[in-house]
């Protein structure tokens, strides 16, 4: 069979359009600012095996992990038409508990088994657990919130109300969760409908064939890209500041071996899994690696299962990059994922220095604030991540105050924040001079200062507070980040902690700068 270049392009447009339309539906119909304003979600289309055909460009950390979720759902439950399976279990296809994935099968032409699957994943701003926002400084998954293994939540088009009531009873903001979940259901319904229409138009066989060719296409693009990297073995080592429980740094090690058009990434010498929540499950490590290699392809290729084929990722179960039950994992998704990117890029920089940027801020600066809103007497839970400096490249200064690598959410506007929560923002600006010096300067981090208008509980889950983002080729490191509690005096707050703030006290977060590139 000769692949027709015309049909290949037409199918590609159509598959991507389905994932994008799901995203539009989810973003618009969701309730919580975290999903609507910050767009912390992803949507994708999968083949009958759960291999990804197309993903809308949303959040990179969901890249490799979405297919694992779909596969876990398929393995656990025999989905009939009109059914949907939800899950967040990091040890069964999930990544961390707030990210809830919803999977739906696509049956066409009375087929016996699903021809495709659609799925979406959204970050819910609370799924229970020991602290508001469900991103606590925990030592076990049980403290982080409600664990949902693959569960049939929608049967024949109807939400299982009993089960849903049980879930809602275990979270702090049930109404918001209900609204967001309804949006996830809508997104999948849209995806199912559009997939069926595609098959109606082109027939099942041709649609499946071209889904396969698109994977081959992406694979071919990546193989050509890897071929241009000099063969060899490149090692790199970096650290997480600590796990939030002990103060010891957590080392991560990588050996990249490039052979022709394939790459082997060996993470097996990384630290054993730790007590605190910076453990990453394998899905996260996979996502971070896929992200790095996807970035190396200059063209706009569809993001699908083909990208993974030239890559062989080796991890040791029970390490911080392949954590096992019942490790705490909330921070693995948001923090360790960033460090894995630093590791992969740091190794590749030795092979292709002109193409690789110095380290970016290397953290998402997760901040959750919870309490009772005095205006309504209702509990609230606010979650946000903050941008920082990007690493400089051989040609350009690093960008300032932006979300780097594994996330790309929007900020919550100050005016939206103050309408919705009992806070007052007292400062929001660039952290001038925090980017590393160099021939090209690293990007600056930012400063965000929030005054509490009521008593609150604050959890920060942040990195690069001790270590700092590396410079490359003689460029300086970026400045590390800093968290402070300000009342009469300013007091330094550790990188990962839950603590109480009284009304009138301020939380000040200064995010890290990016590394510089080249000697000044």
């Amino acid at each position, binding site marked *: 069979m*000769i*692949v027709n*270049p*015309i049909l*290949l*392009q*037409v199918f*590609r*447009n*159509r598959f991507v*359009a389905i994932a994008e*339309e799901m995203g539009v*539906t989810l*973003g618009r*119909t969701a*309730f919580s600012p975290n999903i*609507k304003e910050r*767009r912390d979600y992803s949507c994708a289309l999968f083949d009958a095996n759960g291999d990804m055909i197309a993903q809308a*460009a949303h959040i*990179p950390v969901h890249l490799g992990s979405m297919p694992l979720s779909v596969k876990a759902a398929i393995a656990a439950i025999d989905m009939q038409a009109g059914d949907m399976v939800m899950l967040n279990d990091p040890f069964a296809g999930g990544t961390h508990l707030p990210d809830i994935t919803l999977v739906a099968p696509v049956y066409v032409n009375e087929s016996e088994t699903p021809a495709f699957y659609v799925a979406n994943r959204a970050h819910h701003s609370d799924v229970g657990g020991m602290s508001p926002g469900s991103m606590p400084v925990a030592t076990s998954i049980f403290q982080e919130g409600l664990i949902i293994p693959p569960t049939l939540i929608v049967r024949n088009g109807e939400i299982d109300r009993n089960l849903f009531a049980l879930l809602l009873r275990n979270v702090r903001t049930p*109404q918001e969760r209900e*609204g967001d979940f*309804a949006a996830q259901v*809508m997104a999948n*319904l*849209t995806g199912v409908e559009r997939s069926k229409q595609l098959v109606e138009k082109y027939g099942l066989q041709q649609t499946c064939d071209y889904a396969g060719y698109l994977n081959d*296409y992406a694979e*071919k*693009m990546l193989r*050509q890209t890897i071929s241009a990297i000099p063969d060899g073995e490149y090692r790199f080592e970096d650290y997480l500041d600590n796990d939030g429980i002990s103060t010891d740094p957590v080392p991560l090690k990588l050996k990249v071996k490039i052979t022709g058009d394939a790459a082997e990434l060996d993470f097996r010498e990384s630290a054993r899994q730790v007590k605190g929540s910076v453990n990453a499950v394998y899905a996260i490590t996979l996502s971070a690696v896929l*992200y790095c290699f996807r*970035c*190396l*392809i200059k*063209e706009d290729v569809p993001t699908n299962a083909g990208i993974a084929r030239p890559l062989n990722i080796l991890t040791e179960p029970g390490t911080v990059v392949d954590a096992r039950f019942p490790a705490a994992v909330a921070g693995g998704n948001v923090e360790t994922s960033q460090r894995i990117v630093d590791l992969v890029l740091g190794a590749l920089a030795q092979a292709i220095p002109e193409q*690789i*940027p110095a380290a970016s801020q290397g953290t998402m600066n997760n901040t959750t604030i919870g309490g009772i809103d005095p205006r309504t007497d209702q509990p609230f839970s606010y979650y946000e991540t903050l941008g920082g400096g*990007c690493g400089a*490249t051989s040609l350009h200064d690093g*960008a*300032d*105050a*932006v*979300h*780097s690598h594994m996330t*790309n*959410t*929007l*900020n919550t*506007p*100050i*005016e*939206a924040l*103050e*309408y919705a929560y009992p806070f*007052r923002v*007292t*400062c*929001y600006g*660039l952290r001038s001079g925090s980017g590393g010096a160099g021939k090209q300067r690293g990007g600056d981090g930012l400063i965000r200062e929030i005054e509490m208008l009521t008593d609150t509980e604050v959890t920060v889950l942040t990195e690069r507070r001790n270590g700092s983002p590396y410079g490359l080729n003689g460029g300086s490191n970026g400045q590390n980040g800093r968290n402070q509690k300000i009342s009469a005096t300013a007091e330094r707050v550790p990188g990962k902690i839950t603590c109480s703030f009284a009304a009138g006290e301020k939380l000040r977060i200064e995010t890290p700068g990016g590394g510089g590139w080249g000697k000044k």
Partner: protein
Amino acid sequence: MLIIGIDTGGTFTDFIWQEGNQSGEHKRLSTPHNPAEAVLAGLNHLAGERPFWLVHGSTVATNALLEKKGARTALISNRGFEDIIEIARQNRPELYDLQVKKNPPLVPSELRFGISGRVDPAGEIIETLVEADLQPLLEQLRQKQVESIAVALLFSFNNQQHELLIAEKLKALGLPISLSHQILAEFREYERTSTTLINAYVSPKMDRYLAQIAEQSGAEVFRIMQSNGGSISAATARRESVRTILSGPAGGAVGAHVIGKQSGHHKLITFDMGGTSTDVALIDRHLPLTTESTIAGYPVKVPMIDIHTVGAGGGSIARLDRGGSLQVGPESAGADPGPICYGKGEELTVTDANLYLGRLIPDHFLGGGMQLQTAKVKQKMEDFATQLQLDPIELAEGILAVANSAMEGAIKKISVERGFDPREFTLFSFGGAGGMHAVELAELLQMPQVMVPTSPGILSACGMLMANVIKDYSQTVMLDQQQADHAILDEQFAPLMKQAQEDLREEGVSAERIELQPLLDMRYKGQSFELLVDYTEDFVSEFHQQHQRAYGYASADKPVEIVNLRLRAYGRPDHQLPQQQPKAQAEPVPEAILGQTESIFGGKQQATTIIDRNRLQHGNSFDGPAIITEYSSTIVLPPEWCCDVDPFGHLLLTRKEAEK
């Protein structure tokens, strides 16, 4: 009275004039170094010494922004928040790019100033502005030699005091000042600041340009087209130029709306295919508006006609990428070198594929004014087909199929994704290349009918002549449903209405021509995306219904929130619509048949009639396959379709079986 509409484009400046029952058009080359030259020369040609009224769509503000050649502007914000404009929303434009490129702010940090004072969400002043701070600020601004000033303070839309105080004090500088609560009285500080700043940035340039035309043209009435589909006086446009930023495409949408309405077509999807890109918009009785536009990467949140653009046009280049997929666009051959068939180009484009398939008639392009190079296209198409192991006809049709799938996607975005079924709409095609693709696109989307207006090449200028005077007002209120009865909302609307009446009178609109349309931005409490709902007796159930249509669900028991009040104030123009022509017989006059050609449809060569559009009359009806040519456009009528000429000279294309 002689009324003249002018649309300045990149290549041509289009003129349309109307006087009583008479009308006509005129085209001349644009003068990008000073667009006023072409405008003034054309006006001189058309009007001479006679008095006239003028409506103008200008690209001066747009280009100032796109080329970053606006004024040296200072931005004043709350102290500690000077960087809001630079931080933007913290996201990066490209997800998979190791070289993150953020849009640079229009104002560098040395021209950004913080000032004391703070307002809270309820509009209470929680920190007063220290007036003593204003004198040193004034000195600094003077010293920095700024040319305009933007002021954007937190929650200023709930309490204008501080912004007004700053404006009062800085008046002494004699510079144009844009205040955020006047430009866009809505929450979300980055977007409000950006819109206000862009206004301050582009207005001085627009001011000089409009002043020149006002002085030298001698127009009795001088109105400017806005991006919202209405016009405003040149005097207002000089102060609030941000409202004119997408005036050209807006003219096209207004033209489609008015022409469609006159012919009884109220549901239209407009399709304007040009050389490098294609604009589409959905009209469901009303012109579609959005407040979420981004121009050159900067948010501009004033209401604009919701036009979606995709990077596929007649000049889009076809090539095989290294993964083996046929790409068409976004690279374009543009006007220079242009498609191969224009003589200079070396890479195959969509236009070349149309020529290869016999859908462009080489002898009749631009009224025969430009001979197309058929042989070179044939050679290149065959070479490329050999390389791809395809038949050249299959390749040429494939190039069109890929371009059409991009345009189909664009139309789905504005229809299906928003809960509209394209099968209920007429595809309204204009622009130079639109007519060659319209029918195939309609087939893809199962749309029953295509409409091609008279003079499709200058529809935008026509629309400007037909536009209402429109002014938009808004105010963030953030009210719960129970706080939002009619008494309270009426009270909140009252100052906006008063302002609108005053402004329109100032615009020269007499009271009986004024129409006010109050609207509400509403959402379920907790959502952060709003729907625009008419402020009617039962606006809450109206909201639920709209939510159901847009998003597929509604929750009547969930509390609803009113975020913004909006007011559109219309002044109806006194333009002449085209008049009905007498009905002729079904058979076109013999002179309308220019000859026969061989065109390819569905892989097969077929005898095809070439028809001269200028000779067609009301009541004419004929079957495809046919190619209908006119000065600046070509319309392809495939074998299964037929064409009828309506009473106003517009063409209606439908499937043959639909006729029976």
